[in-house]
């Protein structure tokens, strides 16, 4: 099977890093500045001495100057715990280029950058109403390679209830990393509630929507009965009969634009980073231009 990420892309990823915000939580021994003060060797700030503070931190030079006691504070560097949740509904197995593969490539890149930044990453498959972990937490490059092999064997089928799946995440953590949700968001499920749940867990959330070109500009015409890949039978309400005409296509454009605005408004209001990408866009351009613009990668 063709590897998800080619070696030349991995080479391009050197020197890149995820753009993350400082967290309070996280594992010790990382490379990320924490919002707390810690015990690293890097000086961070001064604070006035308060009874009970460690006297070993008193800066006596300042005392001699100002005749007041100040503590030296040091930066706290932690290792963040990132999560990459991949929507494994049937609608993701669509298009040319394949949406599933594109999503898995993105997931693999995000994992690589996390590991390169001395963070950890864990992959989850959102299947049905469950959030299934794909292998153990990835902390090293070797583990990452193994994780990408597991990702490559991931299948997309059936219907995924995003809200239920997200909220069933077994170990969401708290204020210790970013959750990347990769999905097409073409679902009746209330995924927004799932995002809100993650935000309530004080996780930084990054939403990446993956669409195929024919989902943006469908090349359809005529009297059609649409068959939704996630529907169970032909008379499922999700399989409407439509007269696809120029008016209907125009209405489709308006609906798509409305959907994108709705998602963006939701994300902006909550400080969620949002990126919508099409599978016909080269992965390298998407990563090094669009993701940089969206402050996902730096």
């Amino acid at each position, binding site marked *: 099977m063709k590897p998800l990420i080619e070696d030349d892309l991995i080479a391009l990823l050197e020197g890149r890093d995820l753009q993350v915000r400082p967290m309070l939580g996280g594992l010790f021994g990382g490379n990320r500045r924490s919002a707390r003060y810690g015990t690293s060797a890097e000086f961070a700030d001064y604070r006035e001495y308060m009874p009970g503070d460690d006297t070993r931190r008193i800066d006596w030079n300042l005392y001699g100057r100002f005749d007041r006691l100040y503590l030296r504070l040091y930066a706290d560097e932690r290792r963040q715990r990132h999560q990459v949740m991949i929507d494994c509904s*049937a*609608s*993701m197995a*669509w*298009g040319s280029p394949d*949406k599933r593969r594109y999503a898995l490539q993105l997931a693999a890149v995000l994992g690589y950058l996390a590991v390169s930044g001395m963070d950890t990453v864990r992959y989850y498959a959102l299947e049905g109403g469950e959030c299934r972990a794909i292998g153990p937490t990835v902390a090293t490059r070797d583990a990452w390679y193994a994780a990408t092999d597991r990702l490559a064997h991931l299948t997309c089928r059936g219907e995924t209830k995003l809200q239920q799946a997200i909220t069933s995440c077994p170990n969401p953590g708290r204020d210790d990393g970013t959750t990347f949700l990769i999905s*097409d968001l*073409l*679902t*009746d499920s209330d995924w927004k509630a799932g995002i809100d749940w993650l935000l309530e867990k004080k996780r930084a959330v990054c939403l990446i929507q993956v669409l*195929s070109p024919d*989902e943006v500009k*469908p090349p*359809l*015409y*005529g*009297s*059609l*009965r*649409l*068959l*939704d*890949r*996630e*529907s169970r039978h*032909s008379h499922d309400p*999700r*399989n*409407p*009969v*439509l007269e696809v*005409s*120029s*008016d*209907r296509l*125009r*209405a*489709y454009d*308006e*609906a*798509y634009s*409305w*959907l994108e605005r709705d998602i963006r408004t939701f994300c902006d209001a909550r400080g969620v980073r949002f990126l919508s990408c099409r599978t016909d866009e080269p992965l390298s351009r998407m990563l090094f231009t669009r993701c940089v613009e969206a402050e996902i990668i730096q």
Partner: protein
Amino acid sequence: MNLQNPAGLWLLLGIPVVVFLWLLKPPHNRQPVSSSYIWRLSDLFVKRRLSAYRLRHWLTLLVRVLLVACLALIAARPSLRLGPRIDYIAILDASASMRWTDEAGVTRFERAARQIGDLSADTAYGHTVSVLLAAETPRWLIEDGTSRDAVEQALAQAECGWGGSDLRGAMTIAQLSAGERRTARVLMYTDQTAVNPEGFEVVSFNDGAWNVSVTRGALTSGGCEATLLSSGRDATVHVGLQAGGRILAARTVRCLRDQPQTIRFDLDSPLQDAELLTDGGDAFSGDDRWVFARSAEPPCDTLIVSDQPLYLSAALSAIGRGRVDVLSTADYAGQSGYHFYIFDHLLPGSFPSDGDVWIIHPDVMPDGLYRAGQSEEPASVFTAAILPEAESPLLRQLQVTRIVAANRPVLKADPGWQALLEADGSPVFLTQVSEGHRLSVLAFDLHESNLPMLTDFIILIRNLLRAAVPSLLEETDVDVGQPLALNPPESAASLRLTGPDGTETMLSAPLPRSLTVDRPGVYVMDGGAARFSAHVPAAESAPQPLAVETILLPEPEGEDEEATAPFWPALALAALLLLLAEWSLYHHERV
């Protein structure tokens, strides 16, 4: 409106088929999609434009129904009824007066042709147009023309003549043609005015234009004379006489409207070839000049046998046609070798066999003439009149008036003699032709009359010489379209005729006795042996009203044929527009 093929309306059955197919929605194609989420979301947006969508949806059906209806009507070949079909017969006057131009320089002929062309537009509705060109000899330009193009093409090949036109002949032909048709309408396009025309219409092009013309010209012994005519208004005309490119004389003449004005130019020496010109600027330039063409006459040697030859020899010398010899009556002994013999007071025992003979007042009359007495008047003043029935070349240009003569015998003549002049019922000048030669007799004594003092004397002798040795041409002036008498020599095998434009025509044996030309100018025969000039007939310089004419059209039999205007082109255009509309709606749906 009527339908020429009502069976075509069966195509209207296609309308329910179209409606049925439209209602019969095709089975929905099953189309897998990744997700119908956005499609279902688009329902909110498509409903806002539902009315326009539905309208366009029904409009497509309507356009298709109309298209089928159009095609059914086209198949039924509808046409509009325009009344009975008319066969127009147009008589186009092609006389020289139709060359008169208007202020824009367009001739009457061209304007008439244009109007006939406009008339032929009606051929689109089933009418027909026939055009009869009324020239010297009427001929059909086109019969039963059914298209404007055909009529205009025929008119384009027609040319206006320089002579007269046989309008009566053309009307007769038109009447015969009209009698063979159901509904005929005869129109005459002419510049002549017809008084009370019945059975036909006159389209007049007589616009009262002004024209100055030289209607007649003649060389005189000392110059020339001509007749001018100003039609339409009074005019002051400048006239010039030129020969060899040189102006010999000029004059200004005041011409009153429609009144002929004779002018005369007296010159020091006789004119040979000359030309009389007016200053133009009128409606027709073809009659603004008169060319005098003098044709050399062959020599005619004359022998005068007379004891008093003075008058005769002087006249012959003045005419100047060949050698003139004189013998006294006593010296005559049957000499021959002359073309013309004059015996004064002598009847020879035998007439010369090689020429014509003129006997003046013989003591003894030739065979067939009898003295019936003598005039009782010793010196009778009589008016010798040309006999009404007399036709002879000897009488050409003779204007016999008062002749005073003594000793006028009263004669009776046998039927073999032709009396040309008479006085008081008795012939005084007779002629007969025997064995190819002419014998003429003047009954009274020339020397005891005033005849030698009259111009008729010279004219009579000239006529006698021409009869003895005829010129190739009888006349040197002729109207276009009128025959010119020819006297070709018996030995001639061909004659070459050169026209005014230099074109040559060979007349081969048997040579004609007359010639007709169709355009004005100077004509030369046989490289210059004879010359004559052709002129526009005087009648074309001042067209006269046409006498009352009636064309009787017989009562039509049978049913009228309908004139119809086909309707299908409009329907075809409508069908094409509907097709474009349907394509546009369909294309709009797909885009």
